[in-house]
């Protein structure tokens, strides 16, 4: 099993997605290694959301194959994605505001007691375990029974991240997590992202703004007009160059890779 460390966690090969006559993705290769934070960058409409929606089962690709831990997988619904260990944190869709932290934490996999159709929720255990689990990752909450609506945007993202870490997911997808947050809150979210990596998770961080992700990402994948511009490790490029590529799609000569040129 020595290949376990070397096979990428996720590999998407030749992904094409057509909506009617519109081609949103024109053959994109994308991969995430183990314990790696990948910044997926692209301007609005570049195709990054489509790519991620394919990975999370919201769309099925027109062509192309997804490999998870080296094995080909077919992700046809968000349920499938969850089952293999992909957790997505959407900016607005992460939590239910009027429900408590604990209920949000356990949503869909509540702790129950009793048997058969008479299972009842174990509110106390859910509150205690949620509090402990979040504390374990460094997220301090006052009261797990508190409604999520009372929390700031950063706290909400953090709880969603903490939930993914707790449930032992392998891949965490953060969709524009920091675009509506203050600088301080952004820092907190990036902190928990790093901690998720330390716990063995891989993270895809989707954003159109390099400044949000430069600090934590190991590698950047840039998408534009349905094609991949390139993959760059952090030490290879400057923040400025990435921003340029996102905007214009022009790859600096020194970074041009053979396969990109070929196409």
């Amino acid at each position, binding site marked *: 099993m020595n290949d376990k460390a070397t096979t990428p966690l996720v590999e998407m090969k030749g992904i094409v997605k057509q909506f009617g006559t519109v081609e949103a993705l024109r053959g994109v290769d994308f991969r995430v290694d183990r314990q790696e934070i990948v910044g997926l960058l692209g301007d609005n409409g570049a195709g990054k959301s489509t790519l991620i929606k394919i990975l999370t089962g919201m769309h099925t690709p027109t062509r192309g194959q997804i490999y998870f831990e080296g094995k080909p997988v077919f992700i046809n619904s968000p349920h499938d994605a*969850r089952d293999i260990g992909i957790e997505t944190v*959407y900016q607005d869709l992460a939590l*239910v505001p009027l429900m408590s932290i604990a209920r949000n934490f356990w949503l869909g*996999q*509540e702790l129950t007691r009793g048997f058969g159709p008479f299972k*009842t929720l174990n509110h106390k255990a859910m509150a205690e375990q949620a509090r402990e689990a979040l504390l374990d990752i460094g997220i301090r909450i006052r009261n797990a029974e508190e409604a999520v609506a009372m929390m700031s945007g950063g706290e909400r993202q953090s709880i969603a991240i903490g939930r993914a870490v707790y449930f032992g997911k392998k891949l965490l997808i953060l969709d524009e997590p920091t675009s509506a947050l203050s600088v301080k809150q952004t820092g907190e979210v990036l902190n928990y992202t790093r901690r998720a990596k330390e716990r063995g998770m891989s993270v895809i961080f989707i954003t159109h703004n390099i400044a949000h992700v430069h600090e934590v990402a190991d590698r950047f994948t840039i998408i534009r007009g349905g094609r991949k511009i390139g993959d760059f490790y952090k030490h290879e490029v400057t923040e400025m160059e990435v921003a340029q590529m996102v905007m214009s799609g022009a790859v600096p000569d020194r970074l041009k890779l053979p396969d990109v040129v070929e196409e």
Partner: protein
Amino acid sequence: MANASSSADMLASGQYSPERKLLRNSKFTATIILLVVTGLLSLLFSEQILTGWLAFGERANISRRELNLIELLLAAGGIVWGLLSLYTAWGFLRHPATPSMEDYLGGRVSLRSPGVLFTTALIGLLFAVSIFLIEQVLTGWLPLGERANISRRDINTIEWVVVGLGVLGALLNGRTLIFLLRRDRRAWAWAQWVSLLTVLLMMMALFSGGIDIYSVVPPGGTALDNIPGVLELVALPLILVLSAISTYRYLTLAVDLSADQSIRNRLAKSPGAGAIIGLAALLIGFSLASSLFLEPRAIASALSTNVTNGIVAIGITLLMISGEFDLSVGSIFGASALIFILAMTEGVFGLPPMNAVIAALLSLVFAGFLGFINGVLLIRTGIPSFIVTLGTLLAYRAIPLVLIPEGRIIRYADYGIPDPFIDFSPFLLIALLVMGGLALAYYAIRQLPTMWGGVRRRIVTYRETTAPFRDVAIVTSALWSAVVTAAIAGLALFIFSGIADLLSRTDEMLRISFFDLANGRIESLPIFGRLTADINLRTGVFWWFLLVIVFQFILTQMRYGGFTFAVGGNAGAARAQGISVSRVKITNFIICAVLCGVAGITFVSRVGSVNANLGDGLELEVIAASVIGGVLLTGGYGSIVGALLGVLIFGLLRTGLVLVGMDPRVFFGVQGIIIIVAVVINTAVRRVRT
């Protein structure tokens, strides 16, 4: 209200941070309202007592003992109290950022600032009043008994309630006073509790007939003879409404997370908080206005006539929590009631007339199918449920219009068929009772030792912990354990006697009318004994309440309830966590429709006839009741108990308006105003909370 908002502006420019300002702002409004009203009322009361205008004097004559002392005490207390209240209100208005109890407790100000003085005096006075009240009741000085006779209810119960509340009030007030004098921070929480409890106590006193409005205007006189008395007529409802508002505001201000506020938090979080207070205000208002209102038959009829609405409201609430509407409930109700009655009499879908139980099941399946159509239409088309169900509202209405020839009314009695009976073996009932007994025993074995163990643990650790409410917790948990134990014992006794009774006549089949079972008149109740002929309490009320309990349980204690909240609160998040949003919504449409079918069965069982327009307009009334019960129109928030309260509010309002002699046609107007007020309050509360 105008002065309150301007003071809020003044506050805004003051030294407080935004969150603190918000907190103070609403607290401030509530305080000012309460202060001014209590001040004016106290002065009014003392004036009335001194001049003998108020019938207090007359009643005190009856007691023939210590009359003057009591009157003087009351009058003096009233004057001091009134002046103090007005002084405090004035102080508040002049210095909006006046230091409050919190500042005092923090050691930042002296005792003499108006807010602090007022609170301390309030607590002290309440302490004295509580003691006074107990003493009077116990010694019979105050002729409470005779006044309570007016209300024709059991005098002893009221006296005991008053004594109990008095003791409780005295304990709380005394303790608060000690805290305040010691400058203990916990006093603040205590003070809030005490003021809330006091409002409740006052309401209780009003309930018991302690203040009788009718004797305010002297017999034979005109309103001009007793201007203060007339003012009091206006002032009493006013103070009730205002104290309800202030109580509500205090409760829902912001959820304070300190542990000693847990009950308040729970109330503040409860969607039904507004409905609870509204219902209390309504009960008190009408019971003051009409002596017939709290009569058993008025309550029984208010309950029995609302069984239909109540059952449908459960379904619609569940559906609204999951974020969808169903305007077609009235049509589904009418159609399934028709199917039920036709299936028993003429036969439907080409089937011959059938047994009532099968007909009932058929109508439920039919209703469920209609709900399923609603749900599938919604999910498949993605059109808002408002429009989809507006369409099906009309479409389903066609079913009875087609099936019933023009203008006809289908009456069960017209077919000359005897009422449907269900015959069953006593052994079936015995088996059911045994199963119930086993379930009860299981519950008792699991719960009782835990409960009493908890009480014991609280007593043992009393000295080691510092929780502020630990003594109250001991008393309440012991009381609650006792109540549960007694209830279990009572149920066990009931089951045993039932089994014994059934075993003595196992040779005959038991027979019960289906209509009586579904919604027949209840002849006697376990504790109340035989009900007189004018009390029309229906078995449907039992089914209604049972359904409320079952669905509230599902909603709060089971996974499906959580899914329902999540789907309504944020469908995307629910979907991301693997919850099938469409399945939950369709299921809720079906549940809602089946409950309409249940309502149809109870309706037919009671009335025995169906016309083509049955259930017309039901949807709006039911949605209104749910909204008053705290359901958010956008979904994700609400409770079934709230819906029950909403339906009760409407039911009691209708009965009450008739009893006070108001034109029943006004009812719609009042209903409309209440809905708007309820939605405004709910929205405001949610804004504060989020």
